[in-house]
């Protein structure tokens, strides 16, 4: 026996070392399935040994870069500053428009009791290293448990999502990138509203899976987070569809170009606090669902001026004098043909989505009133215009005839 062991000593040791490692793998896999995922000591040793050097190199690199860019290389800064100021002005204008849209969207969401996830707090971190392997696409950031980071927190950049926190150490954290093969993010295609799962490929590309092959997806479509994974808030940019092909098992293979440059990450944001709350609207007490829905309905042009009777005009003016937001519906000749009119308690009436054109006998003409003091600006194409809010509605007798 001894001679056999002596003869095959090397092989026996090899088998022994391999067996120990396989045993170690089995233990890890078993523990990994439980809720508590502890960190191996060897990981802490390795990370503790290497990350200080990485931090130091990044610090020196940044210091050198800052000295060069902030003190020596300032060519063209004045022109750039001017261009940026112009850009800010344009963005401010855009912001005003977007704020209006957002306010309106929040009101509607609140009315429908949507739950929203808000990014409440983020921590900026710098990428200091990586796993160095194309089999495990992870990076290390210079913030950890001390800064409040926890496992499964979302990591993003201004361009789009990056990944999630995988392991947290006291002063560093490991982030699993979205292009890793074990990564999975719930996504939604912006236009087609199709939902899928974003996964990484062996070559580091990103694809959307679980979209049926009979769906229509066009290259260039934006991909956003769906919020279904409970890690990323809904609506964060993920990337754009680069290529659509046929995948396995009746599913499409949708290749996505990530919005964030995953191969050259420098600074990232970690979402350390998310707030989930029902959307609220400040003016909920004054605005009812019916009002907002009425605003969204297409407007119907009023009757031609020639047919507008003075009585009707008078009634319209009278309605305009009533509380803001009122609208009434008048009917021509056969009253039975008029759509059902529902009058709310707040003095507002809504009509079903009108299917009628004005000026035709026997058909109802919803008349939207407005305060008499407001100037009349008839729309160029009233049919194509979205319904205006009641307080901005045009007088019936001043709308262009059909």
């Amino acid at each position, binding site marked *: 026996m001894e001679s056999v062991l002596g003869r095959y*000593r*090397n092989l026996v*040791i*090899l088998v022994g*070392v*391999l067996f120990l*490692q*396989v045993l*170690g*793998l*089995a233990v*890890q*896999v078993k523990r*990994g399935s439980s809720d508590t995922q502890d960190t*191996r000591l*060897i*990981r802490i*040793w*390795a*990370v503790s*040994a*290497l990350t200080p*050097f*990485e931090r130091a*190199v990044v610090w020196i690199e940044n210091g050198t870069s800052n000295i060069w860019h902030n003190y020596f290389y300032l060519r063209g800064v004045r022109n750039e500053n001017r261009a940026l100021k112009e850009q800010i002005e344009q963005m401010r204008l855009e912001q005003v428009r977007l704020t209006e849209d957002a306010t309106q969207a929040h009101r509607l969401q609140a009315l429908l009791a949507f739950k929203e996830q808000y990014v409440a707090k983020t921590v900026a971190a710098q*990428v*200091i*290293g*990586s*796993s*160095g*392997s*194309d*089999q*495990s*696409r*992870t*990076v*290390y950031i210079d913030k950890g448990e001390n800064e409040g980071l926890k496992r499964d927190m979302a990591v993003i950049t201004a361009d789009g999502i990056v990944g999630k926190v*995988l*392991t947290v150490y006291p002063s560093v954290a*490991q982030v*699993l990138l979205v292009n*890793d*093969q*074990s990564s999975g993010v719930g996504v939604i295609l912006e236009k087609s509203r199709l939902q899928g799962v974003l996964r990484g*490929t*062996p*070559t580091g590309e990103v694809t959307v899976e679980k979209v049926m092959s009979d769906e229509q997806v066009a290259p260039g479509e934006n991909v956003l987070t769906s919020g279904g994974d409970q890690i990323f808030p809904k609506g964060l940019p993920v990337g754009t569809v680069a290529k659509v092909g046929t995948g396995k098992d009746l599913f499409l293979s949708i290749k996505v170009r990530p919005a964030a440059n995953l*191969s*050259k*990450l420098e600074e990232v944001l970690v979402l350390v606090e998310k707030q989930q709350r029902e959307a609220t609207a400040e003016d909920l007490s004054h605005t009812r669902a019916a009002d907002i829905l009425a605003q969204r309905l297409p407007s119907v042009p009023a009757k031609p001026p020639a047919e507008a009777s003075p009585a009707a005009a008078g009634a319209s003016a009278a309605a305009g004098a009533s509380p803001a937001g009122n609208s009434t519906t008048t009917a021509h000749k056969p009253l039975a043909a008029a759509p059902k009119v529902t009058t709310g308690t707040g003095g507002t009436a809504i009509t079903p989505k009108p299917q009628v054109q004005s000026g035709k006998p026997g058909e109802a003409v919803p008349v939207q009133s407005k305060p008499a003091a407001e100037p009349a600006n008839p729309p160029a194409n009233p049919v194509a215009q979205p319904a205006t809010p009641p307080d901005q509605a045009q007088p019936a007798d001043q709308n262009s005839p059909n």
Partner: protein
Amino acid sequence: MPITYTSGEQVEVYRFSLPATVGIPLLALFLQAFLPRRFPWVSYLDLPLLVTIFFGISRRNPISGLLTGAVIGLLQDSLGGLPLGLYGIAKTVVGYGASSLGVKLDVENAGARLLVILGFYLVHSAVYFTVARVLLSLSRNWSWSHGFVAALANAFLGVVLFFLLDKFKQRT
């Protein structure tokens, strides 16, 4: 370039100083972890594997080779997000194989080294993917084109690297 067959007595066995034994693998791990931040293509290279092969074929001691491979592999595992032991097992096999090959063959010339690294890269990948898929049921897909390009890149880098690392060799 042919691989020259030599007898055990003709093959020279080298050893390394303690700083080189500890410093070279750690430097390889550091560069492997740090460089992809600036140069993403570096992640296709496997500097720890090249160091494992180099120590294996230089020392020509299978036990030393497999232990070097196991330690380097486990350290590399600890930097990634996957269970510890994937690279550990693969590099243990490579370390053992490189040392055993070093005992039988003289792999001092560039052509022989190129072939040896190419072969061991593929062995390493095969063991890694087998363990990942069979033992851990991980959805790791193998791409042949990607694998061969990476093997060639590692082989060419390895030839250059080995000539640099030869400076640290000490005759026994």
